[in-house]
């Protein structure tokens, strides 16, 4: 019987059902979209990697010194002479030396192709290797190149074109002699030279990045052991299976990081959606008080009432999850195009997105509807006979106590997380859980504070908008819980957006302050992508009139004192010319075997001037470096500076990542002259201090915008919530609206009344959100002062814009409910039961 009641109810209120389902749909779509996208990407990467090294049984490469990072560029190369020795190992067939390095193809517009994540690969052409010629012929000699067909098509290059290629060295101008079919590279670019050219440009003459070989019928594990026996120290042999797995797992790791990242935002959307669902069900229960009381009066048990409401939630969740899954598939196509991948391969559907969509969709709906369902069961049967029954409301005191405790507990958790306390091995977990608790706590407290805040916000309404204004303000105050829950949904999105903006703005301000403090150079010449500043560029810059110094800074990774570490490498002149160092002890005299560290490291390791520290470079060799000085933390150089001599001696193809330039004057003419000098180096960019700051700001802005876009989803869901609340309120107030129309309120006045109510709710949510966001942001900034986030900057103008946007959201959300209210038939409205 109760099932029938539930079903009838759903059928009778299709619109209501759909409105509730929308928030489920959007949240589920985000989850499903992320999962489908990840699955699809993984399959494409699998396809890509399965095509690589199919015939390789064993691969010989340098032992890894440093985990992670791009060891193809910094690792110790394999000497070509090893090839002969391997050929003599029993069972080895066709050993081939491979060269892999950095080679970026320059497009027709003078800009490097690719480089936003996927690698710009340079390789040697191996006959019978992974690359198949599509058109043309194999490269031979220094002036010839084969590029992958996909990149060629994208850039509009054909066989016979002379193109520019940027490598770790002087730019090259080879001619395309062939196009290779490299499969789907997903944004990576590939350039192949003949082996001697590749060695010279990408690595080191007489060396390979690795040597791969097939097997003459021997099991690859047996062969691996045989090969390993003849290898010199520092090299290792791995099976082909292992090699392919390694390549895959790097990408899989990246993908899973990206997937988790997106999932966090999907969960935020779901969390916001839960508020909407909770609110909608609360309102539905309130509207059906009499009906539910009647059911109770004729003998339905409390459990049955609860079950009927929960049953409705299951149905809404099911519908929402189903539609959300479909929308999610569309979303994943959109994601693909945003990432720059064409969806020609089609989407991959596994069971996971389907299962999770239903688990999340139905789960969230049921959990959110649980409290309203419980409340529904508490409706006394006598309510059926009375006209005006208020649902039993729990006292505000309990609410204040629980909300306050949640807020305080959440704040403490966040503080612990920001202070570096880990939970489950991650500081993000206490911070995230803490933020969640704060949101819930504030949402619980919101009804208490909504009264005064809405009264203040709406104070101007009666004066400016007359009676509709007064009624709008009162309507917003009418049900503080409802107003608060609606506003809370908007609060979450805006709080996170505000946090991101406060942090972004603080980062910008901190970086600018840091640049002023530490950057001594007039100009910086920086390499784009993974390339460096080669010697010809240094020469060109030095030759510019007015240039007094043009000195290279290097960066590298290795193991210092047995731990992975990044470091800068420079000689003393470059150091003092480029950076303003605040020395705490010792001097900058790095010499050939010196090292400097900042005071943090020095204290942590108890190092002093004169301490000797073993440093293992990525190439494998270990040097004993002497600490010559300590300096105050410096963002430009980082915590460690190694003598350039020591770095260059132990690094293949050492290339500076930045050139510090000091000039006699810093006017436009000098800048123009520098740019002219670097015209032949498309991979390099010259920046003065202002432009350097600007480029840093742009990177930060890019990140802030990206995060804001991801958070927009939760704001859209919140807007749907406002629509929902208003639409249901309009239905609930049908008779009141009828009365107002009867006594002469015009449609316009009625619409304005609803619009104003919507705006005040939206503004309340926005104010809460922005307030919390500023607190979150400044707390995070405080916690990260040591990491260089020294300046707190609250972007007041941006936040004001968000406040205005919230008002606009309010107006937009009210459009449909207001239209509906205005269209209501007066007579029907006043005679509705």
């Amino acid at each position, binding site marked *: 019987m109760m099932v029938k009641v539930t079903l009838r109810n759903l059928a009778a209120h299709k619109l209501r059902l759909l409105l509730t389902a929308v928030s489920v749909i959007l949240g589920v779509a985000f989850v499903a979209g992320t999962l489908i996208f990840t699955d699809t990407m993984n399959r494409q990467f699998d396809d890509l990697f399965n095509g690589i090294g199919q015939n390789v049984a064993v691969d010989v490469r340098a032992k890894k010194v440093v985990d992670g990072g791009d060891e193809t560029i910094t690792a110790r190369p394999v000497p070509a002479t090893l090839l002969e020795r391997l050929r003599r190992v029993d069972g080895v067939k066709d050993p081939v030396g491979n060269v892999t390095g950095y080679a970026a193809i320059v497009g027709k517009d003078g800009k490097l192709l690719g480089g936003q994540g996927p690698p710009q690969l340079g390789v040697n052409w191996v006959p019978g290797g992974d690359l198949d010629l599509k058109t043309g012929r194999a490269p031979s000699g220094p002036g010839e190149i084969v590029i992958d067909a996909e990149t060629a098509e994208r850039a509009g290059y054909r066989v016979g074109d002379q193109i520019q290629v940027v490598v770790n060295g002087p730019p090259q101008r080879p001619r395309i002699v062939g196009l290779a079919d490299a499969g789907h590279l997903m944004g990576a670019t590939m350039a192949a030279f003949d082996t001697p050219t590749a060695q010279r440009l990408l690595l080191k003459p007489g060396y390979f990045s690795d040597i791969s070989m097939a097997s003459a019928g021997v099991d690859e594990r047996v062969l691996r052991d045989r090969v390993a026996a003849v290898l010199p120290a520092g090299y290792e042999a791995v099976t082909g299976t292992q090699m392919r797995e390694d390549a895959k797992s790097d990408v899989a790791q990246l993908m899973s990081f990206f997937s988790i990242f997106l999932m966090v935002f999907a969960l935020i959307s779901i969390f916001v959606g839960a508020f909407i669902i909770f609110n909608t069900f609360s309102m539905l229960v309130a509207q059906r008080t009499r009906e539910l009381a009647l059911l109770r009066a004729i003998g339905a048990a409390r459990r049955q009432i609860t079950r009927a409401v929960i049953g409705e939630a299951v149905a809404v969740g099911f519908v929402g999850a189903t539609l959300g899954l479909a929308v999610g598939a569309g979303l994943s196509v959109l994601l693909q195009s945003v990432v720059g991948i064409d969806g020609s391969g089609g989407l991959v559907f596994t069971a996971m997105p389907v299962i999770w969509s239903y688990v999340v969709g139905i789960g969230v709906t049921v959990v959110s509807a649980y409290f309203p369902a419980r409340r529904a069961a508490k409706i006394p049967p006598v309510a059926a006979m009375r006209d005006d029954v208020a649902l039993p409301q729990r006292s505000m005191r309990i609410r204040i106590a629980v909300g306050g405790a949640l807020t305080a507990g959440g704040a403490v958790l966040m503080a612990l997380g920001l202070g570096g306390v880990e939970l489950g091995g991650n500081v993000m977990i206490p911070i995230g859980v803490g933020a969640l608790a704060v949101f819930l706590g504030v949402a619980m407290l919101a009804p208490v504070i909504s009264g005064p805040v809405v009264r203040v916000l709406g104070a101007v309404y009666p004066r400016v908008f007359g009676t509709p204004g007064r009624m709008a303000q*009162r309507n917003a105050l009418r049900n503080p819980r409802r107003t608060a829950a609606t506003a809370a949904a908007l609060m979450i999105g805006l709080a996170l957006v505000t946090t991101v903006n406060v942090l972004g703005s603080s980062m910008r301000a901190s970086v600018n302050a840091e640049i002023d403090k530490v950057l001594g150079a007039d100009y910086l010449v920086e390499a784009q992508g993974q390339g460096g500043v080669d010697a010809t560029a240094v020469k060109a810059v030095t030759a510019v009139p007015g240039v007094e110094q043009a000195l290279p800074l290097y960066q590298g990774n290795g193991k210092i004192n047995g731990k992975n570490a990044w470091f800068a490498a420079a000689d003393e002149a470059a150091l003092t010319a480029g950076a303003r160092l605040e020395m705490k002890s010792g001097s900058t005299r790095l010499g050939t075997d010196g090292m400097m560290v900042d005071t943090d490291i020095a204290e942590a390791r108890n190092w002093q001037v004169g301490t000797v520290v073993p440093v293992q470079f990525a190439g494998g060799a270990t040097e004993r470096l002497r600490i010559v000085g300590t300096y105050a933390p410096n963002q430009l150089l980082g915590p460690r500076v190694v003598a350039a001599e020591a770095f260059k001696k132990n690094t293949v193809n050492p290339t500076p990542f930045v050139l510090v330039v000091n000039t006699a004057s810093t006017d436009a003419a000098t800048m123009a002259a520098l740019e002219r000098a670097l015209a032949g180096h498309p991979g390099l960019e010259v920046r003065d201090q202002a432009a350097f700051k600007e480029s840093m700001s742009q990177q930060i802005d890019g990140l802030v915008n990206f995060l804001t876009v991801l958070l927009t989803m939760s704001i859209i869901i919140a807007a749907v919530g406002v629509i929902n609340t208003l639409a249901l309120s309009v239905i609930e107030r049908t008779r009141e609206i009828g009365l107002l129309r*009867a*006594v*002469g309120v*015009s449609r316009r*006045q009625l619409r304005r009344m609803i619009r104003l109510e919507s705006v005040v709710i939206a503004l309340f949510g926005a104010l809460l959100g922005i307030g919390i966001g500023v607190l979150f942001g400044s707390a995070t900034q405080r916690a990260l002062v040591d990491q260089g986030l020294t300046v707190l900057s609250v972007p007041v103008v941006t936040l004001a814009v968000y406040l205005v946007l919230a008002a606009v959201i309010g107006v937009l959300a009210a459009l449909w409910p207001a239209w509906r209210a205005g269209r209501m038939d007066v*007579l029907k409205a006043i005679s509705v039961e």
Partner: protein
Amino acid sequence: MTHTAPTTDEGLAAPGAGDLAARAQQITKVYGSGDARVVALDGVTLGIPRGRFTAIMGPSGSGKSTLMHCMAGLDSIDSGTVLIGDVELNRLDDKRLTRLRRDRVGFVFQAFNLVPTLTALENITLPMDIAGRKPDRQWLDRVIDTVGLRPRLGHRPSQLSGGQQQRVACARALASRPEIIFADEPTGNLDSRSGAEVLGFLRDSVREMGQTIVMVTHDPAAAAYADEVVFLADGRIVDTMAAPTAEKVLERMKGFDLPGATSA
């Protein structure tokens, strides 16, 4: 234009022909179509004289509420003409109709008369506030004192009894001095004492302030407060009665319960 039977002959002509606050001429109203077709009003012609208290009576389904809704501009008619003063309602669009209701008509409904978020005083001045007009202070004071609600003006409707709520509704209807007030079963939800208070108040406003009131009711005791009673059955006016008493009205009403009595 002379007012026509039956109102002419039976005493409604007393204040003088032509001085009518509202008129209905040959109006018909049909709901549904085919088998479900119901003729709610079947060529009703009626004049509401100014400064009088007119009651419209009839059994359930006689069309009395429909007649009132149509005359008040809340419902549309299928044929005929409705005038309030000299304004023909059929020709007005929603905007003008709304303005007419706001400025020239007052309403008292059976229930749910007040906006729950507004205080009693705010409810009383609501139509004028919407119009952006200043209420006439003296008049307002007089109305408030007449309904006897001065100590309760700051209360919300939920803090008032049913009788008090209806008195606030009456005060609202009176406050803007409309040409005509339509009351739809104003005492339907009240006990007899509160009902008598409200009805007495309505009658006094006609006698002392010269207000025009049309009231729909099915309660003979309520109808007895009116100056004239118009009887409606099956969408037609079947009788009128001047100076009604509860007994006379009840007697007349009994006739409707018999099948075919209306055609007699």
